[in-house]
């Protein structure tokens, strides 16, 4: 049996928490002394289970640090960081790793596919990590690739695919293990406008593929790409390690009057224009 027991898995599933992410006073500093950099300066954030939240802000404002802490790949210096009710700070490294594998799927800007593995093998990796038998893992990976319209390229190597196709593989890999949180770091930054829209459609569709709202996936997207803002349920703007502004879908309509967002965030109709 894997180190993460079935019992703990059930406990997570039954927490009844409505929040996927809960951050209270999270701080993070890199380095020390005069060269230290305060990446996060007391961040409070809540993200609901089925929300698609975009983190925006200038480079160096702490977006990546924030998602790293949310997804458990980085520890906070102080404050509380909970994912589906689990406080990361209460877990040891090994438990954090296992929880992360269970709860979080990643989509990276640079795709981070293993170049020597075929795309079906790449997609099967999260399942193999969890101990799923190889044959079953490959079957499920093939199905996942079919769902991102790459079912006919399963034997291809990542280098034989375009950037958009590679990102679709990465999405299939992120979703194949049924994670409850999908963290996307600049998923469209390496893609052209049209492909970026296709990828975001895919992320949104797959995240929302479940009819039961309680079991929909939470998606957090770090991005600079204004063309995809309209996919967000909520946009959280960061600046200098703090949350500066939060705009929900509803308030974004009102935010048309706010010069910056009005300029940056096109309406879905505008965004879909070629």
């Amino acid at each position, binding site marked *: *049996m*894997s*180190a*993460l*027991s*079935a019992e703990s*898995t059930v406990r997570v599933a039954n927490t009844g928490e409505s929040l996927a992410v809960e951050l209270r006073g999270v701080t993070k500093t890199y380095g020390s002394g005069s060269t230290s950099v305060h990446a996060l300066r007391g961040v409070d954030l809540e993200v609901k289970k089925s929300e698609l939240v975009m983190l925006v802000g200038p480079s160096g404002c702490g977006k*990546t640090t924030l*998602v*790293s802490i949310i*997804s458990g*790949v*980085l520890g906070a210096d102080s404050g509380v960081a909970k994912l589906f009710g689990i406080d990361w700070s209460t877990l040891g*490294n*090994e438990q954090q*790793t*296992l929880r*992360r*594998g*269970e709860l979080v799927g*990643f989509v*990276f800007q640079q795709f*981070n596919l*293993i*170049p*020597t*593995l075929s795309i079906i*093998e790449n997609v*099967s*990796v*999260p*399942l*193999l*990590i*969890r*101990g*799923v*038998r*190889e044959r*079953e*893992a490959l079957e*499920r990976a093939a*199905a*996942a690739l079919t*769902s*991102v*319209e790459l079912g006919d390229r399963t034997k291809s190597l990542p280098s034989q695919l375009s950037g958009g196709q590679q990102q679709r593989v990465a999405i*299939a890999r992120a*979703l*194949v*293990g*049924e994670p409850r949180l999908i963290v996307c*770091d600049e998923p469209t930054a390496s893609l052209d406008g049209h492909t970026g829209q296709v990828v975001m459609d*895919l992320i949104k*569709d*797959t995240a929302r*593929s*479940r009819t039961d709202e309680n079991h929909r996936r939470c998606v957090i997207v770090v991005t600079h790409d204004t063309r995809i803002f309209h996919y967000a349920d909520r946009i959280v703007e960061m600046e200098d390690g703090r949350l500066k502004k939060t705009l929900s879908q509803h308030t974004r309509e009102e935010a048309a009057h706010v010069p910056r967002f009005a300029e940056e965030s096109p309406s879905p109709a505008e965004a879909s224009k070629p």
Partner: protein
Amino acid sequence: MRLPLRADCGWAKGDSGANALGGMYKIALRMLLRDRGKYLALVCGLSFATLLIAQQGSIFLGLVLRSTGVLQNVGQPDLWVVDPSTRYILETRPVGEQFVGRVRSVPGVAWAEPMFSNYANVEFADGTFKRVQLIGIDRTTLIGQPPEMVEGSLEDLRAPDTVLVEESSRPKLNNAKIGDVLRLNDKRAVIVGFCRAKLGFESNAIVYTTFDNAVRFTPVGRERVTFILVGVKPDADRTAVAADIGKFTGLGAFTPEEMSRRTIGFILYETGIGINFGITVLLGFVVGLAVTAAIFYQFTLENLRHFAVLKAMGTRNSVLVRMVLLQAGVVGMIGFGIGCGPAGIFTILGRKPGAELAPYFPWQLLALTLVGMMICIGLGSLLSLRRVITLEPAVVFK
């Protein structure tokens, strides 16, 4: 677009850890074997390191073993009786012939025969000369005879002024043939045959003759017996007989193994060969180590980002460690196997009769090389593993 939903994945259901490892081991092997450029570089580097360690080791062993050539050529005796202060088979102090009789009288001794060993010069018509190792054996029993006759008859050695020449030494003696007359220490010596025997440490040509001829070819005074070769009665204890010989004659009686150890010890510790060649072998090992460790470390470094991604996706450190060790073990074994090939060929070629190089490649050296390789690859892995274990999965976002 909908993904297939499976909430009951093996992990949650409690699939065995072996499944997880099996799948991840395959991933590790694919990462290794499909990156052909790096894989070939790794295997080539490890093969070279293996070759270096094995080949240098085999030359060293061959050289050391060569010093016991005289011992290896004589299979019959249970004991070698010599002056007790003898340290090396070719550094002896002869004893008088009366000692042969004394040794024969020791209880447990079945037979004892004298043997002569010394250097002599063969002079050629053009005025040049060659130094040869002259071995004199008992004319009646021919105990101490060469291991194998190649041409001619051993019995012909009983004729006056006759000699046998070690086969591979023919070129050193102007391609001598049966019937040729050698001018041996200014005496006439007729070649009556050729034999095969191990050359000594100095690779001099070996010339066999009878004990009486030998002392005539190389006058050494009253004390003319270099070794007394002793056979022990079947029911006697060799060690006890050796002790008795020492007690009754004042000479040293050694088993062939003891004599070999003395000789090898002398070469290793009393000459510069041990330290000089030891340094060469050590350098080969260190170079092999450095090459192996550096190549493997580089390989892991280049895969570090992929390991970070695996870690971010939930792969435990212990699994990553096993993946790296598996990769190390596989390239180590393949590199070892390939490297042993040329080392083996080198040994086979080097052991041809008369070859000046005499590499010796026993299974112990093979095992030692394997251990050495595993140490090399283990150290390389340790360096790599340190990076993998301390790897922050957050680097995947950079």
